[in-house]
């Protein structure tokens, strides 16, 4: 298996409070993995370490052949922009920008000119059932629409890895399932690896497998039926 993203024996503490105590995880290219666990178990901290947002206190984080944890802030920032996409639970769209501009943002930040970036962004609206909403601002979108726009923004630059932290946490269950269905379909079409943090079993059931974070460690379950 080709490993896209990997944590080896990662520890991280917020001050005196340990959040990760030797977490190890390897995610295969194109795999959709659910990271589960109770509140405060360290699952979001793990996502932030994998994505180069936080630097672990010890251990290693790798994306393909690049070791992330030893990179400086500027290099990690460039890596996040070039290889990673993100979808979070709340408040991620820039309210001053239209929906299409929000989707185009990762491309604009990556140095693509406005015209081509917006054209690429608009192509996602049809794909995610958002046609006609390109010019709306985030305040004029429903929760489900806003989250689909956020999903388009997370995938528009064709990232190697999409990090999704409770992406349906603010949505009712049927809307959440629509978003998850689209997330999984588009990630598979593009071959994007997905690290999905969720405490909801019905969301985790969209992934290929799950790991459970407990007390800062990863508890990979025995494989069932495979």
């Amino acid at each position, binding site marked *: 298996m080709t490993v896209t993203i990997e944590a080896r024996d990662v520890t991280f503490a917020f001050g005196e409070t340990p959040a990760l105590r030797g977490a190890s995880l390897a995610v295969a290219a194109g795999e959709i993995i659910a990271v589960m666990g*109770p509140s405060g178990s360290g699952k979001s901290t793990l996502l932030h370490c994998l994505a180069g947002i936080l630097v672990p206190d010890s251990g290693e984080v790798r994306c393909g052949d690049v070791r992330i944890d030893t990179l400086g802030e500027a290099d990690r920032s460039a890596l996040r922009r070039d290889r990673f996409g993100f979808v979070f639970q709340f408040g991620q769209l820039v309210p001053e920008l239209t929906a299409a501009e929000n989707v185009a943002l990762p491309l604009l930040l990556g140095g693509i000119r406005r015209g081509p970036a917006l054209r690429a962004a608009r192509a996602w609206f049809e794909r995610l059932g958002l046609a006609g909403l390109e010019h709306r601002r985030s305040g004029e979108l429903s929760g489900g629409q806003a989250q689909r726009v956020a999903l388009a923004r997370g995938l528009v630059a064709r990232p190697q890895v999409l990090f999704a932290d409770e992406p349906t946490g603010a949505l009712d269950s049927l809307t959440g399932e629509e978003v998850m269905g689209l997330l999984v379909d588009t990630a598979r079409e593009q071959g994007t690896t997905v690290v999905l943090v969720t405490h909801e079993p019905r969301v985790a059931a969209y992934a290929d497998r799950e790991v459970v974070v407990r007390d800062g460690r990863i508890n990979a379950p025995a494989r069932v039926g495979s």
Partner: protein
Amino acid sequence: MTVPLTLLGLLEREPSHGYDLKRDYDTFFGRGKPLPYGQVYSTLSRLARDGKVVVSDVEPGAGPDRKRYVITDRGATEVEHWLTEPVEPEPHLQTVLFAKVVLALMLDRPAEAYLDTQRAAHLHRMRELTEIKRSGGLVDVMLADHGLYHLEADLRWIEATGARLDALRKEVRR
């Protein structure tokens, strides 16, 4: 058993032959587990014996398929009663899991590992049901959802129990 009541319900919609009843049952309720013909006809004859259906006309020829079944007032009352009464809430998986967890703690066995294995099995089944939902029609979606919500409830119980194992261990090992 819901088969007799489901067949009665289908007969309340319209009088029908055994073959058509089986076809409708398999389409809407069988979901990969078709009703054997034998069970259709044995159920219909029991319903007839109990006065819940009658045979209206028997077409010339031989075989049970020649009979057309009609629901009686007694049968319709039974369907009505079944539909309006709530189903007995029966949390029986929890009972099995509960017994396993408590015994594991009493016997100083790894209860947490048992819960982890159960969680993995539940999530595995939830993935299968999610796949069925994503590739099927609305009837499949509804059935899969029913299973998914139940499994989710079990998982919540598993998480809550997992968080209380230390306290539970003290209580059951006194």
